[in-house]
């Protein structure tokens, strides 16, 4: 039923060129209390042997343990972050903060990722083959976070109490995402193949959110800038938006959207000078 067809041109994948050394992490056991593993980044692995990597400490509750208590570490890292590929072979749903703040290199998770995957990442690439828990790509600055499954709440969002969410980079979700996608977003792009729920693009100031599917409600509320495209139906449309025009073939930076869209600006509920643009599929939303 989605009429808006998305065409990506040259989406910057942030892929590193050249040879990469591979470090494989194989989970050894069931994890009860979730791990805080912000050391799992190409930056902190760079230049280390598998023993040295295994000795890096991760938090579980109030205690720290060596990484090797939870993972079998195979292979040495490259000499720099950009030459390092980390492959997590298995499910990482109970491992939080993977790839936090990474600047280069690549992480591949052959399962699901826990909360805060790719938080504040500056460059490089993370591929999650399963789902991602909430706060994926929180306050991301650059690089690519590619989630092949579904994502939880707060994708690319600002931390609680903060004004500014993601400022750059790209988040691609092949499934659906839940609430507050791109909250406080200042720049960069989020592409969702499936649907989103409430508060997509809340307090958005810049950047682009493209959702191929539909949205529940409160899309773009309190937005002052930036662009949101919704390819499916918005169940309950927010009252602070004003209709501008009908549009075909909108080009937004590197991305082109095809199909008939109604363009709105807002959210005038907050500011009289709001500059946010909201494109909504005309066919899926005939009543607007």
């Amino acid at each position, binding site marked *: 039923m989605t009429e808006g067809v998305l065409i990506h041109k040259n989406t910057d994948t942030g892929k590193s060129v050249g040879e990469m050394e591979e470090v494989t992490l194989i989970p050894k056991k069931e994890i009860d209390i979730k791990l805080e593993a912000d050391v799992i980044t190409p930056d902190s692995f760079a230049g280390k042997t598998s023993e040295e990597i295994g000795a890096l400490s991760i938090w579980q509750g109030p205690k720290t343990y060596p990484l090797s208590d939870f993972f079998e570490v195979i292979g040495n890292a490259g000499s720099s972050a950009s030459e390092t590929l980390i492959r997590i072979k298995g499910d990482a749903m109970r491992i939080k903060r993977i790839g936090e703040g990474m600047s280069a290199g690549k992480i591949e998770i052959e399962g699901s990722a826990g909360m805060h995957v790719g938080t504040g990442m500056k460059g490089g690439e993370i591929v999650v083959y399963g789902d991602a828990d909430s706060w994926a790509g929180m306050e991301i600055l650059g690089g690519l976070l590619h989630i092949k499954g579904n994502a939880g709440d707060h994708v690319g969002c600002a*931390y609680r*109490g903060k004004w500014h969410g993601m400022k750059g980079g790209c988040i691609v979700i092949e499934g659906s995402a839940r609430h507050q996608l791109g909250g406080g977003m200042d720049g960069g792009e989020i592409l969702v193949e499936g649907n989103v729920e409430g508060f997509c693009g809340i307090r958005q100031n810049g950047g682009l959110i493209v959702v191929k599917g539909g949205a529940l409600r409160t899309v773009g509320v309190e937005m002052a800038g930036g662009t949101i495209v919704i390819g499916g139906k918005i169940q309950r449309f927010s009252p602070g938006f004003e209709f501008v025009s009908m549009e075909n073939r909108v080009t937004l930076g590197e991305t082109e959207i095809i199909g008939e869209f109604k363009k709105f600006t807002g959210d005038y509920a907050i500011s009289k000078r709001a500059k946010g643009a909201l494109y909504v599929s005309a066919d899926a939303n005939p009543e607007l």
Partner: protein
Amino acid sequence: MAGTIAIKNGYVFDPLNEINGEVMDIFVRDGKVVKELSAAEMKESKVIDASGMTVMPGGVDSHSHVAGAKVNAGRMMRPEDHYKANLQKTSLTHAGSGYTVPSVYKQGYDYAAMGYTTVFEAAVPPLEARHTHEEMCATPLLDMGGYLVLGNNFFLMRYFRDGDMEKAAAYVAWMMKTHKTYGIKCVNPAGVENWAWGKNISTLDETNIHFEITPREVIKGLTEINETLGMPMPVHLHANNLGHPGCYAITKDSLKIPDGVKTKQNMDVEWAETKMDPSRDRSVYLTHLMFNSFAGTTWADCESGVKDIADYVNNRDHVVIDSGCTPFGEATVMTGDGPAIHDLYTLTGNKWSNTDVEMECGSGVLPFTYLKSNPVHSLQWAMGLECLLLINDPWKTIMTTDSPNGGPFTKYPEVMTWLMSEAFRKQTFSECHKWANDRSELGSVNRELSLYDLAILTRANPAKTIGMIHRKGSLGVGADGDVTVYNINPQQLDANNYEALLQTFRKAEYTVKDGEIVAAKGEIVSLPEKRTYYSEVHVENEREKEMLADVKEWFRYYTLGFANYPTPEKYLANPIPIQVNGER
């Protein structure tokens, strides 16, 4: 209690004893500075070799916001302030977090790391006194006390209206004892009461709603009562119209009100030895002068009005100010001045909170970021430094950031360095908006403070102003053994090398409290007991009885019972009552 310690061969700066960089030894026995130690004691004592280093009394902050309801409101309102600034627990210290509004533990450690040992919370709302004391109690290392907010108190305004000054004085005395607080704070006199009705007051002779009292009457009444009672410190005044373009005029007029009020500090304490007269000679302590010094009529034509007030202060002897510097970056604005916070909210649209503390005072909290690129913020930076550099006599000035209003106290090293280095000021001018230079006089100031001046601004004068020099702010015999050692050789001091100055001020080489090393190079190494000071003010029993009858009558309208109002001593860490007015 610590044993003995000798701090040897340092360049000592002790302005209250007129010691300006002499190479001396400082000895501490049982927590107090002594003239010398016997040979036997020397053998047992710890020794700090301070040769080639600067030795000062422990830092005294006479104006900071570190405990109580509004600080806590700031903490709750700002989770984002806490997640990137945190402190891991060690075998000795507690964990902590927060940058502009840190948790109580982190606060204590951060102050001690910079060489501070004494910090006074500048605004305690009476109904929140218990909470304030609980937080002060949990703050490690620091000797503390609080100022009670009384500028919009129903009882006082009623007594002032009826001209019943004796009962008003008895009420203030009773409130100090009841809430275990140290001095009088006056915020936006008469104006905060109007805020309960969505209004404010903009001139000194405008009467407020219901009480029909003017700011002038409140300031006059409180400053007179302060001297009648013989309080340790002058009234801590936050003038009306704070933060409004053009407010410098009302600030100057407010300062004129207590001119001529005769100071009388009447405390029953043992004084440490000082060469200077230790008694207080100021009748008013104006707080955060920078926020009270805007000239112009709107934010578009606003400029610095500090010069005008500085001229007034230079020509009068009854005023002491603290600066309220804004060192750029994140801050959390918090004040008893509710309407001022509402104005900031309309200006910024930030999240905010406002409270009317029933019948007693108000408050407001709002996060704020001072940007170098913003014209007004850059001007505020220049004005804050003007407050300290245009007033000639350092004994009339105290360095603060009104933490966390102008910026967190952890930015003191920056402020100290700007004061000492013209080169650092020039560097900042080159980075910030041109309003800083065009609309203030700071650019033409070439004064650079010496270490001696700095010791006055950050130790001797705050202690003198608040009447704490019987124990703090000097290294005279009998003073508390609070000492800061900075790794600065005054003989080789180069004000142009401001990076080095910044580094040394950020982490004192040693912080000694009560003769015990509490921090070395910024690391906390011991946690001795702390103290809480308050004024136990004595007045005639008859007066107190009459006044209490009134107060009990009014308590029918309070949310809590009269018996639950006072703060018992058990809420205080090591309480030290200071007997005021001699009558026992």
